[in-house]
């Protein structure tokens, strides 16, 4: 038994104001995020024989199917340099976004935790995102091995890739905050996400390179999709520096629109979440 009252530490006096997104400070939030993410990650694969390998098997399977269907069945994109590497890379990046947002969207309900302890509410979606980030990092190792074997030339653009990853993480956090705060009152969000995510998958240059997108609806869809410039730029930086960039041949206003939407999602998410954080425990 520990010695109680051994160190009469100064007892802080405080007026309670209810829970907030960052309640009790950043360092406690970060500690909880880390612990819960690790626990979540371990739990996800506990008891399965292949364990963490599943984090690789799932995107690789999707890649394999799409690659065979597109290049062998439909015989498309044989002329696109390093198409296979691009497809694998894009799928890994998109899977992170889709899984992280899907997990974070319902995170405020996890274990009823926020109803049972004083938790910085932000820790809930953030630990779901961090748990998926572990998966992203292992997946990036696989991509690294793949593109080396596939003979992709090392490029200066690789040095900028972490910045791009950061942009992806920021967009992921913003979207997660928005959806998880909506989820408190509208559980439909969790039901809708798989469909929205599928729509986004096809409205982002993942399976097809940017240069083959026909003018019209598809271009318009890309212009309102904040993921599109991130994925397009990732290809330029990592796979093929000669591929067309996001701004190439695009009306400047239309090219900037997804950035504006992305920033709006992030700001809207932060505002919506910090508001909902105050009452989420009572409402779930």
């Amino acid at each position, binding site marked *: 038994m520990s010695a109680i009252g051994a160190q009469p530490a100064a007892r802080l006096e405080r007026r309670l104001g209810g829970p907030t997104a960052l309640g009790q400070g950043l360092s406690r939030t970060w500690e909880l995020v880390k612990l819960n993410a690790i626990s979540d990650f371990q739990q996800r694969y506990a008891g399965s024989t292949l364990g963490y390998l599943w984090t690789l098997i799932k995107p690789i399977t999707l890649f394999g199917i799409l690659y065979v269907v597109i290049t062998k069945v439909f015989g498309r994109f044989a002329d696109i340099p390093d198409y296979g590497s691009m497809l694998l890379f894009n799928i890994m990046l998109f899977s992170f976004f889709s899984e992280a947002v899907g997990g974070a969207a319902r995170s405020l309900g996890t274990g009823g935790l926020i109803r049972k*302890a004083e938790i910085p509410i932000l820790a809930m979606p953030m630990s779901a995102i961090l748990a998926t980030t572990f998966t992203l990092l292992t997946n990036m190792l696989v991509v690294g091995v793949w593109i080396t074997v596939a003979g992709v030339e090392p490029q200066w653009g690789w040095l900028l890739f972490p910045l791009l990853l950061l942009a992806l993480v920021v967009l992921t956090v913003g979207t997660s905050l928005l959806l998880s705060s909506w989820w408190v009152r509208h559980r439909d969000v969790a039901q809708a996400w798989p469909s929205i995510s599928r729509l986004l998958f096809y409205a982002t240059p993942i399976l097809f390179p940017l240069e083959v997108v026909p003018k019209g609806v598809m271009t318009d869809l890309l212009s309102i999709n904040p993921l599109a410039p991130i994925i397009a730029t990732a290809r330029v930086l990592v796979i093929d520096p000669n591929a067309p960039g996001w701004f190439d041949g695009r009306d400047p206003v239309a090219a900037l629109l997804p950035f504006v939407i992305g920033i709006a999602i992030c700001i809207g998410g932060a505002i919506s979440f910090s508001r909902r954080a105050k009452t989420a425990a009572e409402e779930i």
Partner: protein
Amino acid sequence: MRAGTAIEVRDLRKSFAVPSSDTPTLADRLRGPVRRGVPGALAVLDGISFDVEDGEFFGIVGRNGSGKSTLIRILANIYRADSGTVDVRGRVAPVVELGVGFNPELSARSNIVLGGVTLGLDKEVTESRVEDVLSFAGVERFAEMPLRNFSTGMRTRLAFAVSIESDPDILLLDEALAVGDGDFQERCIAELNRRRDAGKTIILVTHSIGKVRQECDRALLLVDGKIASIGDPDEVGLAYRSHVTNDSRPAHRKRGVTDGAEIESVELLGADAEGGLPRGERIEAEMVLHMLERREAVGGRMEIRDGEGSVVCSASELAGEIGEVEPGDRVRIRLSVENRLTPGEYELGFRALTAGPQGNPFTDSPVEWAFVSVSGHADRDSGAVEVESAAEFSVERSTGPAAAKAVAR
């Protein structure tokens, strides 16, 4: 905040929106927006104020829905108050449920850290206390075993050990002691008392009047979001018992009043000032009924409950010889029952019984309660009443020359 105060609550109010149903579905909306429930507000806490001192074991009692859990959650900063203030001094750890933050796939050791951090401790501090927690829970040998392989009892013990070893300045326990076997519960209570003696504050939300009377220094009774009684645990316990037994009765039957008579006084004879009853001597009480209407028969009932509120026995006596009584009459009833109670805490309840005229069935009054104790060494295993016993023994020997029947008395 005043020095020496752990919690200061002032004019605390909290209400919840109560829509007629949860989020209206699309089908509801199609049926017409007019039919959608208009959200009302249910006042769950209605302007309450109280202080809890450092080193106090403080009880909060009330029926389901009285606002206890909401109050605990506001004190734990899980819910936000609508208005009013709550000031706390020191670290608060709520135990709304045992094992918050636990992950069944991880080892006991990892779960102790997870649970501790969830309750508000630093990771390093929690890690330094892992061995203490394991030993308090008595599961040292299973430190590396995944929690899902633990028995329910082991898991409960581990969860409680985590909460108590997190050593907060203010520990909020919401019914958490209702779990676990008797032995472990006693160890928990002993540990809580040790913490209290070291100056920590314990707040216990409970349904058990017995726990309030035995453990708490002060207590508070919540009725419909208001403080109905606060202070001495015995008084609060009596108010709670009376609230539970009497408030479900029709409103016109006021406290102590039956249809035709009211209980004017009840005096427990032979009890000392603290309600101590000598062991083995008859329990005797004198009730005085004040008649409000003409009745053909009157009587009284004494009911004995144990410290947890379970009825041990009840005895009713009717006056056969006094005949009809008129309004204004006073009826004195001396009621006594054999005292077979084992040492411990008990509740005595008294009711007036009346019947007639025209052969109406008996009606009984609400109960007047008194807390009593029977002194002596309390042995939990012996039950609430002592009974006379006798036995005959016989043995059929299987070996030896004395294989004949032996009888012993």
